[in-house]
């Protein structure tokens, strides 16, 4: 048994049965990092010393039969936007290159309390700005299935890490597809939750009305286990929901017979790669075999989702990133002559090109004379996109759509053209403005052996149904079990 292949469920069971120790499990994951991450470049920071210390403590608890945490001994990684007390938290941007978080994000705190062990922080596009992880100021992460390809983004390091057996799961963040698209490109599972389901406290902000915290895992079942742990109301995040967090495992094995699944025609347009389309259609047949009722539906405002999403997102960016002033934390230009130069020069040197582009576009969209035409217009279209979903969910329970119109693309292919990079998010950005959840799961491989994923989309707080449907699919398929052959 290769310990780095295990799911959370399998690892918990084996730890309980004392088939191996937590230390052995954690070391097996570090062995993969030491062997392959030089090349894959998924990690920005590795926390071996603290992880082994925590592993030994977990082993003591397990030996005494006192492992109270529901995730005791499970090694995981976190995207480098999550504040971890005493650990470098860079947002993959030079402006935070030496920033040490003075406190834990709520999700990190909850995982710690449940006994999970952080093994490192993963690379991503800075502040979540990108779809390939190439915008990171520190390194380019490679796709473990084909090292000439991008792992997707923005959470590319997280997805590559999970696919490579470096940590059993990764804590990540999705503002417009940043969990689902890299999960799809790397052949793993990813959940983008209902807005407000998981606290954003302590997570470096991108667009505050769109940001959601979720996980990248090996199976749907593991995602269900984790959401129960990290979800819930948080006094430190006023946008968290009051609704109780259900025990997703209780309903995950239920039949999906007669579940009404809509296929939105706008997601199967001319631009979609033929192999992607064929694999999604094959997967839809599997859902039919499971007893689901498939019907065509329409979301007419889909074509406006990219501009509406980006205008909303970048406007929030321009406000959120105003805090990087070179005074309280982050990069600071030493020889600036006065305060204004300190702001201008620190931000000029600390931010990379995509970050500058987004701040400037957002500033423009909010500036006098353009606010109504850009920001307000985008918020109105956002409402129409949400209404599209509201209407469609009166007729069907969930939707099936591709995650991305194409498989992982070449490193460098879109890096020089920011607009082309934005357009890669065409099928994922739609749900963030509406605040609804989406679950990305692997559903096959192209002829070049690149993973393809589909997403299940449901109304607000429909995570139990998404997990049930995704799990039903993973029970009758093996796509999620395929592993890249790392050398």
């Amino acid at each position, binding site marked *: 048994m290769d310990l780095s292949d295990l799911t959370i469920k399998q690892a918990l069971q084996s730890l309980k049965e004392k088939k191996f120790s937590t230390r052995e499990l954690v070391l097996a994951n570090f062995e993969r990092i030491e062997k392959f991450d030089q090349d894959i470049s998924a990690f920005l920071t590795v926390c071996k010393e603290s992880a082994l210390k925590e592993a030994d403590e977990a082993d003591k608890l397990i030996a005494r039969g006192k492992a109270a945490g529901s995730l005791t001994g499970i090694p995981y990684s976190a995207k480098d936007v999550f504040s971890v007390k005493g650990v470098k938290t860079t947002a993959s941007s030079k402006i935070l290159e030496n920033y040490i978080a003075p406190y834990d994000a709520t999700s990190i705190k909850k995982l710690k309390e449940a006994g999970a062990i952080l093994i490192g922080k993963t690379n991503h596009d800075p502040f979540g700005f990108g779809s390939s992880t190439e915008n990171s100021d520190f390194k380019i992460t490679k796709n473990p299935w084909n090292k000439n390809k991008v792992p997707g983004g923005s959470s590319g390091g997280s997805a590559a890490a999970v696919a490579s057996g470096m940590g059993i799961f990764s804590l990540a963040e999705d503002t417009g597809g940043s969990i689902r698209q890299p999960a799809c490109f790397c052949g793993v599972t990813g959940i983008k939750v209902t*807005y407000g389901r998981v606290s954003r406290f302590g997570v470096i902000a991108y667009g505050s*009305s769109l940001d959601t915290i979720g996980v990248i895992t090996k199976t749907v079942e593991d995602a269900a286990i984790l959401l129960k742990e990290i979800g819930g109301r948080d006094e430190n995040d006023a946008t968290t929901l009051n609704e109780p967090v259900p025990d997703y495992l209780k309903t995950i094995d239920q039949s999906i017979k007669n579940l009404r699944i809509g296929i939105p025609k706008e997601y199967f347009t001319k631009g979609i790669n033929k192999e992607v389309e064929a694999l999604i259609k094959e997967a839809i047949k599997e859902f039919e075999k499971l007893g689901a009722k498939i019907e065509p539906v329409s979301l007419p405002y889909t074509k406006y989702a990219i501009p509406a999403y980006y205008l909303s997102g970048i406007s929030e960016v321009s406000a959120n990133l105003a805090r990087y002033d*070179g005074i309280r934390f*982050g990069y600071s230009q030493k020889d600036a002559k006065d305060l204004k130069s300190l702001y201008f020069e620190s931000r000029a040197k600390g931010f990379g090109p995509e970050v500058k582009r987004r701040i400037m576009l957002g500033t423009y969209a909010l500036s006098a004379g*353009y606010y109504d035409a850009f920001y307000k217009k985008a918020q109105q279209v956002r409402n129409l996109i949400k209404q599209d979903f509201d209407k469609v969910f009166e007729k069907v329970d969930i939707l099936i759509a591709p995650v991305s119109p194409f498989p992982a693309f070449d490193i460098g292919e879109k890096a020089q053209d920011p*607009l082309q990079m934005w357009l890669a998010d065409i099928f994922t950005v739609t749900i963030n403005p509406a605040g609804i959840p989406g679950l990305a799961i692997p559903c096959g491989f192209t002829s070049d052996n690149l993973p393809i994923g589909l997403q299940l989309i449901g109304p607000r707080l429909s995570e139990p149904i998404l997990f049930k449907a995704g799990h039903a699919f993973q029970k009758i398929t093996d796509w999620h079990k395929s592993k890249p052959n790392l050398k």
Partner: protein
Amino acid sequence: MAKDLIRKQVEHVAELAHIGLTEKEIEKFREQLSAILDFVSKLEEVNTAKTKALSQTTGLKNVFRQDIVKPSFTQEQALMNAPDQYKGYFRTKKVF
């Protein structure tokens, strides 16, 4: 909507955003931002005369909590990432 930005507009936005730009960056961003603004102007096609703006999806309003004093950062923690400090204060450059 002005779709093709002129240099002056790029400089103005950079000024508002407090980002210093090099000559080369001004020209590069002028082209790239113009292309993106042209693309997002697609929203003009949508009739939104009767549509309300939607800025959030939770429906939550006025979320309050008890105003209880709790331990917070120590002075040391608050200053631990400060690029420059003086006697327990953040030190900045002169304003004028």
